[in-house]
């Protein structure tokens, strides 16, 4: 089955100084791009694509894939260090990562993110290499009906992210749905809910939304904090000196292993989400985080646990390899980055598609090798970056806040060079500030914002195809029926869980009160 000649050729192409150098450059730029709020893997790959015009095949793949991998991991660095996700897929990492940082365990969180990313990425690459064609066939089974149910299932799974106060979680989800309806109607393309602003005709994009709610929101909160406490004048000298000293609690091998469950969840969810066109790594991260939280309530994910970081980061990096599945199996790019990698392959003279394996076996093998090698580079280079950033996170707030705000402005703008995106980002900064002060969880908003429009699109597409027949649309195939049953079961189980959680909470409250009473009595 393995074409050894091609493999040998691929090895001689990949293991050259040139390829290794470009791979290292790719990962370095990628981690940097990822760590800057608003700059995504897509932007990075798009910017570097023209450079590959003149490169040889393996070096071009090295640069782009290295950059892609680096950027997906890089987002977590600033998420942990400054509560500002560098990319939208790292937004789920903020919840536990930044809490760890605030407790002085930034280094531990960053290392968890790195190891979880690399582990899940590596394993999902292996899965991609071994069973890409099979995975692709599974992905094809998902048509409009199946996707609709999948989205509903995902939203139900995320009940866990709504926090203790259910109504606030739901409010956040409804807000996400509301923002998601801004823009073109999925069937007629007529603009809706745009408040008569023509520049909203295409809707709100994820980048300015996430940068606004997380980065700008967090910075505004910091400003409020700084201005409400009578501050002593800050002197920078001493704190800056501290930046260059090493230290901080690392991550032990035992701790790494203790996250195996979360990493497996991330691997499974990420691989699955990655191979379905149009979902992407942000959904992978949030879904994996939500499921991990639901599966192990005793671990108290969300309160600053390395398991939360591991779940989110494994979930987003595991999408990297599988994103290429539809591209390699059918020539269909499943995501923007996959489309760019497809373009790069075409520039190298290989049209992506099912015949690639026959026509360009050496190129395919070098692609696989680069996918795997990229992880090793990510591990090494990511470590260096993690330490530098962990230190930057300790910068005094009066210096850090303006820097992050400036980056947020640049990030929101350079996403599409659209000045209105800056306005949108600033607007959501206020929304973020309100949500923070009123403790409305952000995760449900992001999730419904991402998934609800897709659910709507698929539902209505299904109805169009089936000429308005609801039953045929919703119960289109055994898979759709299975997913629908899944939704019902999940809703039932999670409502039971919620009730039992509440019972435990109430009994704990009762016990605490009893104890207080008895203590009072004994004192008295």
């Amino acid at each position, binding site marked *: 089955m393995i074409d050894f000649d091609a493999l040998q050729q691929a090895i001689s192409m990949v293991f050259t100084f040139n390829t290794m150098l470009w791979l290292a450059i790719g990962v370095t730029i990628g981690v940097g791009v990822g760590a800057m709020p608003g700059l995504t893997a*897509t*932007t990075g*790959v*798009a*910017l570097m*694509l*023209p450079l590959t*015009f003149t490169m040889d095949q393996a070096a071009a793949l090295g640069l782009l894939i290295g950059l892609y991998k680096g950027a997906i991991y890089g987002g977590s660095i600033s998420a942990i260090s400054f509560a500002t996700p560098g990319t939208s897929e790292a937004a789920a990492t903020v919840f536990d990562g930044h809490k760890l940082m605030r407790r002085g365990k930034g280094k531990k969180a960053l290392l968890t993110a790195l190891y979880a990313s690399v582990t899940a990425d590596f394993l999902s690459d292996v899965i991609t290499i071994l069973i890409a064609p099979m995975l692709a066939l599974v*992905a*094809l*089974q*998902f*048509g*409009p*009906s199946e996707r609709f149910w999948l989205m509903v299932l995902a939203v139900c799974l995320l009940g866990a992210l709504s926090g203790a106060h259910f109504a606030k979680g739901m409010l956040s989800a409804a807000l996400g749905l509301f923002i998601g309806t801004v823009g*073109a109607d*999925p*069937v*007629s*393309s*007529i*603009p809706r809910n745009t408040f*008569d602003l*023509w*520049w*909203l*005709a*295409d809707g709100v*994009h994820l980048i300015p939304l996430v940068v606004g709610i997380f980065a700008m929101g967090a910075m505004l909160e910091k400003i409020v904090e700084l201005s409400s406490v009578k501050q002593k004048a800050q002197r920078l000298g001493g704190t800056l000196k501290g930046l260059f000293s090493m230290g901080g609690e690392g991550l032990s091998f035992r701790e790494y292993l203790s996250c195996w469950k979360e990493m497996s969840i991330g691997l499974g969810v990420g691989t699955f989400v990655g191979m379905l*066109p*149009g979902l992407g790594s942000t959904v992978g991260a949030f879904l994996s985080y939500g499921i991990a939280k639901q599966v192990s309530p005793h671990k108290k994910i969300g309160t600053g646990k390395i398991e939360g970081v591991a779940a989110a980061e494994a979930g987003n990096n595991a999408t990297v390899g599988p994103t290429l599945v*539809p591209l390699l199996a*059918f*020539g*269909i*790019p*499943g995501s*923007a980055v996959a*489309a*760019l990698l497809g*373009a790069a392959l*075409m*520039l190298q*003279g290989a*049209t*992506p*598609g*099912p*015949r690639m394996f026959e026509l360009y076996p050496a190129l395919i093998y070098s692609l696989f090798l680069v996918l795997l090698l990229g992880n090793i580079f990510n591990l090494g280079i990511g470590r260096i970056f993690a330490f530098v950033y962990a230190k930057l996170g300790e910068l005094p707030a009066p210096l850090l806040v303006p820097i992050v705000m400036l980056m947020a402005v640049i990030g929101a703008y350079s*996403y*599409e*060079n*659209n000045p*209105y*995106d800056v306005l949108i980002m600033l607007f959501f900064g206020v929304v973020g500030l309100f949500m923070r002060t009123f403790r409305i969880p952000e995760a449900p908003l992001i999730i419904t914002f991402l998934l609800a429009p897709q659910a709507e699109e698929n539902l209505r*597409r299904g109805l*169009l*195809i089936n*000429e308005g027949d609801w039953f045929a649309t919703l119960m289109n195939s055994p898979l759709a029926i299975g997913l629908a049953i899944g939704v019902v079961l999940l809703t039932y189980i999670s409502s039971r869980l919620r009730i039992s959680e509440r019972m435990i909470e109430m009994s704990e409250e009762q016990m605490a009160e009893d104890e207080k009473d008895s203590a009072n009595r004994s004192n008295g």
Partner: protein
Amino acid sequence: MSRPSLEHGGKKFMKFLTRSALALAGATTLAMTAPSLSFADSYPSTTVKTIVPFGAGGGTDRWARVMSSGAFDVFGHGMHVQNRGGASGTIGWKYMMDGKADGHSILLASPTPVMAALMEKKPPYDPANIKVPAYYSIMKPTLVGPKDKPYSTWEGLVAYLKDKNNKKLSIGGTMTQLLGPASLLAQLGLENRVILVPYSGTGKAVNDYLGGHIALVNVTTSTATGLAKDHAIIVNSTDLDYPKSAQKALAGVPNAKSLGLKPFNPPRFVAMHPDTPDDQVKMMGEKIGELLKNKAVSKLIGKIGEDVVYVGPDKAQAQYQEVLDEAKKYLPLFQ
């Protein structure tokens, strides 16, 4: 003595005057003609601001990067590519409209911002109000279907749709792509026998088609080439032949011209501010033509799986107007 000398002097003076007048006239004529001559020779006289109304990495962006790689050789100046994405390309278009008509700013447009403006109740600009110096390509929406069905050929498809006992057929694709078969079928009065299912990208539509969730899919040339081995290629809705690289795989596919129907040719075109003087529009159109002929540029265009269809300044504006009218006619099918 004084008189003749004066006369002489007068003659001299007259001679001088005549000469000066001639020289002045000549200089004026030169001054009047020279700038336009040198303008044509040295046009563009500075960097060409090239607005891409989409983010980095998309199809139009790739065209821009490839074209700009040959700009120095052809223009004598660079092309400064600026991505101004957002709101389906309308932000970039509006940016061009708000800028100056300096003859050195162009927009690399596609049908997307045109459609977006047509969808808007209060559009930020009138898509008809621009100057079109050139087309640089024309997309070739191509209908693909399964091989083993009665509708795997154009004749079969028409016969199938004419038989009212058959179910309607769903066709997936992006809105621009779908306008192709929509216009062909509408000419035969069959537009209501198909369901046009819009997708945000060709990839998603092909995915649903391969999974059997929609009956037919309308795709780009390069995707059609990839699918040709195992699927039936039914029709090309333009009146153009496929590029050389695709002719082998897509041999024998009927197009609008061979079917005697009016084609739908969605263009990739260069747009300029409506106030740009016509001579500058013309010169820009011609320069774009030269740029596309540049060896290095055309080689790269082939490599990114695209093909050049150049329509010069003499025809581009009229053809654009025609496409606009067609789009307006068939867009209500989606609403």
